[in-house]
């Protein structure tokens, strides 16, 4: 069984008399250790899907099972405990605590879990060294660049060794060079610890870091393909899109994710033990 199972998910926002269908009928299953990218244009429902998968929002219909547990049926307290244990977050706008130092920011998820100060500071320092901020432990967010702040954010997302890390446009506020650094770091960390990473972006190039790309249009999955090129071979990534049959299907009748079962996909990692990209290979 997959780690994450999204079943017949539907989300409708109601503003006055108007109804906005953010998600049609989404089916998706993601395996443990997968790096999965949800790719789509603005307003296609990526964030909505991610938020529901993370238990931050309730769907209108359908359910999300994580490790067999239905998180859409959980209460607030249960969800908080579940997130503490299983989920890490990387935000587009970093969302660090402005008054806390880098170490304190990174240690926060562990504090919520009730880990003692000495232990969580040790873990946090280890994480900060791993993201190359060994010299900025005592710095506050305002004393750091955007790239550095996002690296603190990455350290915070991974510090508690969650099963799943969600990242919604993690490089949205960064320049292209920093984007590469940060993306490498996120993907690298997830792969190193065998953690599942769900990446949301509108940028095809960023999608190349993932093992698998799920394309979303108007709240429906139009394609779900393994990413053979992984990175630096984008010329091969293009035909797969064209091969997707459901590209123009209306939202409600989107092909379920099961059409391309992820379990059958060869793990790109298995072929290439060091899939880290060369930043120069990217067009600027």
């Amino acid at each position, binding site marked *: 069984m997959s780690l994450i199972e999204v079943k017949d998910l539907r989300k409708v926002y109601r503003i006055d008399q108007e109804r906005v269908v953010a998600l049609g009928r989404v089916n998706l299953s993601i395996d443990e250790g997968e790096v999965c990218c949800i790719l789509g244009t603005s307003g296609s429902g990526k964030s909505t899907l991610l938020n529901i998968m993370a238990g931050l929002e309730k769907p209108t219909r359908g359910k999300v099972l994580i490790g067999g547990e239905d998180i859409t049926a959980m209460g607030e307290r249960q969800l*908080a405990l579940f*997130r503490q244990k299983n989920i890490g*977050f990387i935000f587009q*706008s970093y*969302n660090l605590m402005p*008054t806390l130092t880098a170490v304190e920011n990174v240690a926060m998820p562990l*504090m*919520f879990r*009730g880990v003692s100060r000495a232990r969580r500071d040790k873990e946090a320092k280890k994480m900060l060294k791993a993201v190359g901020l060994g010299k900025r432990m005592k710095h506050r967010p305002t004393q750091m660049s955007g790239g550095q702040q996002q690296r603190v954010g990455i350290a*915070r997302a991974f510090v508690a060794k969650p099963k799943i890390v969600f990242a919604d446009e993690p490089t949205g506020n960064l320049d292209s060079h920093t984007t590469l650094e940060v993306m490498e770091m996120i993907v690298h960390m997830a792969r190193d610890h065998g953690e599942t990473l769900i990446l949301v972006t509108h940028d095809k190039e960023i999608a190349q870091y993932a093992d698998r790309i799920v394309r979303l249009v108007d709240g429906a999955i139009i394609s779900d393909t393994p990413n053979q090129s992984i990175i630096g071979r984008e010329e091969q990534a293009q035909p797969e899109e064209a091969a997707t049959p459901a590209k123009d299907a209306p939202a409600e009748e989107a092909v379920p994710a099961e059409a391309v079962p992820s379990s059958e996909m060869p793990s790109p990692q298995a072929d290439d033990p060091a899939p880290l990209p060369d930043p120069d290979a990217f067009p600027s």
Partner: protein
Amino acid sequence: MKIKDMIVMCLSNLLKRKVRTLLTVMGVVIGTCAIVVMISLGLGLQKTQEEALAQMGDLTVINIYNYGNATEQPLDDSMLEQFRQIPKVVAVTPVYSPETWGSVMFISGKYQYESSIYGVDMNALPLLGYQTDAGELPTGGKYDGVVLFGADSVQNFRNPKSKRWDEVPDLNLMEDKIEIVIPFENDPKNKKSISYKATVPAILTSDWSKNPSPGYSAFMDINYLKKLETEYRKLNGVKVDKNKVFSYNNVVVKVEDMKDVAAVEEVIQGFGFETNSMESIRKPLEEQSRSQQMILGGLGAISLLVAALGITNTMIMSIYERTREIGVMKVLGCLVSNIRTVFLMEAGTIGLMGGIIGVGISYGISFAINTLSMQGGAGGGMGGIGGMGGMSLGGSSIIPWWLVVGALLFSTLVGLASGFYPANRAVKISALTAIRQE
């Protein structure tokens, strides 16, 4: 989250905005000061009142007066014994004056005592708080021939032959020879008069708040006085009406504590006697001072209420500012109960800090009030009214320990209550909306 981490978070949140925290705390300080100082003044007033009452009479003493209607229940020795059995009763004594004037007389040389004699229970005198100017109150139960004179009663010894009224007799009552005389036909010089030697073990301190008052009078044991009276009747052939039941006119009952007075009075009234105590004066005074205290405390409470609104306002402001932080905390798995606790702690801490500083300042104010009123009182005393008058005129402020504890608890409670609404608001913040907010 660990409690320790929540405390650290709460304190660092408060320290982050020092000025605002300080201003909010100031509000609580003023409120606490107002309440504590007002109540302390009320307590001072009450104490002054009690002191004034104590000057008027012993607050733990009940007087039973029984004139005329002795038919139903005689106020006699067996009844007194019943009074002694009432719980909380410390001492009971009759206040008895010989029925026939001059039936018992004191003579020392050419001087003759011409004032009131009281028959009392000698054993009760120490318990009733009688003091001596010289000598010691007699104990032991053998009181035949024992006479206690009041400090000023020497002036009531007169030379019947002298024309001058202002002559102060040259007598030392404790040492000079004094005779107790049962006169025959009201003539102490008559050969048939009986006389006994008097022993005077002590001179009683003058105290007008006491009943019987020892100032100008002489005290003897009730049993001995009654014996002398019987001898007088025999000697002069006075007939006693057999149908008349003996009954004391006045009995004094002393109880353990001020607060026992009402209950004991009720029991005695149950026997059918009229009672009289300072309670009837003290009670309305106490009620009056209680309502004064309520008004004063109420004034203080209003300023603390204003402070409470200040706390609520501060907390709501800080929640607005921290909406995003709270949202992120929730997304990262912080329990809402932890968030609520942190906010309540912040509000409670503001209350407690205000309470502590407020109590401290109140002590200062109280000290200042007492120093000023003492100087005023002393000045008044010098002016000639007398020390006691000065003391009861000056206001004073008293801060007992329970007021300190109460003030700290109350201010903390006010803080917590003011934080209740903001904390629930913080809890209801939607994590998603909060992190979307730019």
